[in-house]
């Protein structure tokens, strides 16, 4: 895997991969960094460079064989990143897609368009539940671990076992529209389909970050905290 280094220019990374714009936003890094290196920009914005690069590398290449176990990742910053990412999906991404859909569907306003909106709403509700579970159970549990107060009733394996791939149903939704929604090719419809494609990809990355960066990290943490308690 080709990985980015702390001494690479931030502008090189961001202009080569447009998806990085989302990553920057979630880490709270502002644009306008000129020719500064990744490390410099991260330090300026109070972001841990290694955590930033681990997220970047995973998003750029989700191939299973890439190993992230040796990365120095800050659990705290990763959790913040994931929370920001949740607010992005629930507070922005799904809302804009809903508005775009509504615009197209309201012009038709028939049984089919109602069914399409219903499907989408049901889906968003499902993702919301999925993310709220993480916010209410997983993240507080991790914070307690970080504070050295492990909760013996929960562990990260409980999360890992039931963690579902929420992007799958978005894929189904997209093909349902393409296959069964008869509409003359319209710019508005294409635009919302593009957004759904991008959102699906983004959700898949988001899940990969949880499964491949966060879960192993918390497992390690559980090991050390529990050991400390036993001594």
């Amino acid at each position: 895997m080709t990985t980015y280094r702390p001494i690479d220019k931030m502008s090189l990374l961001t202009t080569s991969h447009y998806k990085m714009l989302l990553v920057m936003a979630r880490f709270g890094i502002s644009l306008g960094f000129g020719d500064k290196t990744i490390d410099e920009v991260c330090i300026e914005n109070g972001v841990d460079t290694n955590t930033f690069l681990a997220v970047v590398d995973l998003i750029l290449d989700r191939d299973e064989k890439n190993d992230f176990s040796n990365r120095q990742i800050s659990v705290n910053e990763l959790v913040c990143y994931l929370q920001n990412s949740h607010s992005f999906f629930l507070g922005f991404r799904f809302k804009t897609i809903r508005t775009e859909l509504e615009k197209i569907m309201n012009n038709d306003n028939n049984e089919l368009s109602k069914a399409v909106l219903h499907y989408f709403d049901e889906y968003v509700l499902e993702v919301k539940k999925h993310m709220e579970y993480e916010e209410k159970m997983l993240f507080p549990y991790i914070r307690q671990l970080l504070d050295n107060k492990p909760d013996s009733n929960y562990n990260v394996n409980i999360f890992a076992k039931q963690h579902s791939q929420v992007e799958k149903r978005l894929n189904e939704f997209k093909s349902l529209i393409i296959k069964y929604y008869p509409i003359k090719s319209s710019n508005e419809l294409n635009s919302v389909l593009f957004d759904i494609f991008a959102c699906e990809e983004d959700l898949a990355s988001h899940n990969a970050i949880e499964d491949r960066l966060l879960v192993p990290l918390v497992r390690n943490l559980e090991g050390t905290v529990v050991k400390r308690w036993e001594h």
Partner: protein
Amino acid sequence: MIKSIKIAIAEPSVVISRGLSTILKKIHGFHTDIFEISDFEALKKVSISQIPDILLINPTFLFVQGIQNFKKQYINNKTKFIALQTSLFSSFIIREFDEVITIFDDEEKIKQTITDLFELPDREQEINALSQREKEVVSEVVKGLTNKQIADKLYLSVHTVTTHRRNIAAKLQIHSTAGLTIYAISNKLI
């Protein structure tokens, strides 16, 4: 219906495995998910965690552990086991595999080998995907009836209704009532 298949390529040479995966990605009618594997540890990991539909493997990978041993321990019954021949192997090795691809096969031959393993349905069949009975089941599901209620209404057993629903989901690749509703309205089933 577009199928999604997971293919794992176990081959120490990245030049060969990358080349193969380029060819495999071009097979029509499939979404391919390809895992390139270059060492034994990764092979064990992917075999267990991903359960690939196809494992395309350079037999030399298995000489240490023994082919039969490896198959017993790591390979699920549904995984097609294909030898990737980079040099000549004796027939008692080759007969452990479901198929053989050699590095001198051309693109067409490789694609053919893969599609033959999965017997892609022809296009005619795809268009008439649902049987009349299945269509009836769809329209009742969409109305919100339970399997029991559908069974009573159509004079079927609950078991048959469940089977119909499973087949419908597989044929249409739709796994929710909300999705079936869209399908049913669009196809004027309700």
